[in-house]
């Protein structure tokens, strides 16, 4: 426990501190960028892109090895990963726009085929005698071992770039996510905006696949926004809150993993985000499950059935008598009586 506290307060050594800061920054960027994807209803598209980094990693490894390099050079691997993730995006868009396959099926097919190709390439690396692709497999579930200052710096730069792009484009992005038709009619460059959003996802994915792993990075894009949605009804606040939740998840997850080396960092970060999400789902005031249950109980109609019928009789006697207006636009009567009975009462067929 004290180890966890020390790690939480950045006191568990230089390396643990680096990892904690880097992952928190990653979570910040992922939460904010993920909000755009969740609001645009394309959360799973980022999953397809994340899985589609695998063939890029394999291909880059093969290419670099064939050119006489080490195969594990990180910039090359990242470039390969970004390239195939982008190709997967194009594939999903093409299937969705040019054919009648619904987008979710296009995402599932692209994701699995790209990942399958990645697996084939991994085994090719093995059988071609280019050495164990052991370094590559750590990209699947991430690994914070050997994270350097340069890595944290790269993540910080990427996060800063992504967050500033988001801030500049916050209005058109929100407008597009809410009402694509209006946005397009108003002359906003819809395709370009979507491409920019996907590029930000790509940034987060490529920066995060080393830490959290490409299988789970999408969790960091989805869980914080979903958690944030329970606390606010404003897109802007939701984005900020999601970034904070993401940073908090990164921080707590890596601290836990630093304290108990058995616990892998990536999945722990995801579990921290999931805990925040579950807590928000249950406890958030207003939209949380408990608050909503309480509100539903309080909203039980105060008039009993008998009184409802009296109301109806009154209404018959004096059609101009006011009905109780409720928030949801129904009248109190319509809430109290079954519709067919209400109709009969109001029609005078039953007194």
């Amino acid at each position, binding site marked *: 426990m004290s180890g966890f506290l020390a790690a939480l307060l950045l006191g568990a050594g230089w390396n643990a501190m680096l990892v904690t800061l880097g992952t928190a920054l990653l979570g910040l960027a992922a939460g904010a960028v993920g909000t755009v994807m969740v609001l645009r209803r394309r959360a799973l598209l980022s999953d397809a892109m994340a899985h589609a980094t695998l063939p890029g990693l394999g291909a880059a490894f093969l290419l670099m090895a064939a050119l006489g390099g080490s195969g594990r050079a990180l910039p090359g691997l990242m470039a390969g990963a970004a390239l195939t993730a982008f190709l997967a995006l194009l594939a999903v868009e093409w299937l969705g726009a040019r054919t009648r*396959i619904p987008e979710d099926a296009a995402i599932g097919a692209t994701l699995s085929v790209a990942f399958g190709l990645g697996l084939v390439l991994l085994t090719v690396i093995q059988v071609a005698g280019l050495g164990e692709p052991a370094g590559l497999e750590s990209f699947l579930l991430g690994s914070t071992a050997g994270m350097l200052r340069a890595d944290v710096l790269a993540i910080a730069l990427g996060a800063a770039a992504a967050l500033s792009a988001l801030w500049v484009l916050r209005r058109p992005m929100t407008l597009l996510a809410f009402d694509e038709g209006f946005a397009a009619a108003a002359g906003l460059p819809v395709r370009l905006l979507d491409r920019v959003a996907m590029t930000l996802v790509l940034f987060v994915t490529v920066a995060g696949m080393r830490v959290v792993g490409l299988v789970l990075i999408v969790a960091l894009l989805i869980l914080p926004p979903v958690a944030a949605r329970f606390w606010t009804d404003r897109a802007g606040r939701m984005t900020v809150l999601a970034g904070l939740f993401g940073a908090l998840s990164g921080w707590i997850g890596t601290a836990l993993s630093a304290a108990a080396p058995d616990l892998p960092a990536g999945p722990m970060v995801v579990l921290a985000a999931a805990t925040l999400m579950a807590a928000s789902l249950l406890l958030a005031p207003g939209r949380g499950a408990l608050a909503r249950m309480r509100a539903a109980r309080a909203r039980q109609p105060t008039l009993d059935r008998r009184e409802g019928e009296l109301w109806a009789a009154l209404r018959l006697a004096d059609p101009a008598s006011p009905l109780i207006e409720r928030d949801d636009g129904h009248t109190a009567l319509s809430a109290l009586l079954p519709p067919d009975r209400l109709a009969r009462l109001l029609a005078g067929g039953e007194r």
Partner: protein
Amino acid sequence: MDAVFVQLSLPPLVIGVCAAVACALPGNFLLLRRQAMLGDAVAHVVLPGLVLAFVVTGSLAAPVMIGGALGAALLSVALIEAVRRLGRIEPGAAMGAVFTTLFAIGVVLLEVTGASGVHLDVEHALMGNLESLIWFDATGWASLLDPAALAGLPPQLGRMAAVLFMVILVLWLLRRPLAVATFDEGFARATGQRPGLVGMILVALSAAAAVTAFEAVGAIIVIAMFTAPPAAARLLTGRLWTQVRLSALIAAISAILGYVLAGHGPLWFGIPHAVSAAGMIAVVAGIILAGAAAFGPHRRRSGAFVTS
């Protein structure tokens, strides 16, 4: 040669084909009902189910594993629905939130309990081990008629075949309500049918197929076969039942061709090793889908349903 084929290649081929077809068939209806990512979700949550079942019972027996996985799959479906309704968010985000969380739980459990040393590991879960499904007792084609040798068949074969049979049977029994519920849920309800129940049966059937196939051949084939063959078939025909049959055919072709290419493809380049069969099967399905998307006679969205 025959003996080697029957020993090493026949069981994986048959299991692969059964798994592919069993996933592709319900995949058609999931695709039409906009639930195509269900296979993806189930494939992710099977891992924690397997680990938990192992941790609780200490057994790796197939019924325990499949029971645990099926439980996890059904739980995940319920959780997704709960998050979607309570959070009022799009189904994709709800799905992503749930299945990544459960997958992360699976990975952590694996590490914490030490189950990873025994039999379960993440890589196996993702990639499957189609190649290891070997029929040791076979000596040639004649073994197919030899009860003693047949008893030594990989148990996955029997299970997968049974699940495939069940899938076909249930889909056949439900063919009419399923078609109506998929095409027009409101109409189905108005005419006194139970589209909700039909949908639940479909989800349970899909989960059963996904779990059994996962255990035999790994996650990637499951996800690929739930989506790619039905999507390709959708682009080749405008008729529901033709699409279902075509998807089964495409799944079978992918399984056979993928397995053969993975085993023999590298030989053409002078490399005496096989590459991942599961990955290759997904790739073949993807190539067929790409072909259908480029040339399929029904690839375009129909113009007849444009509403004014």
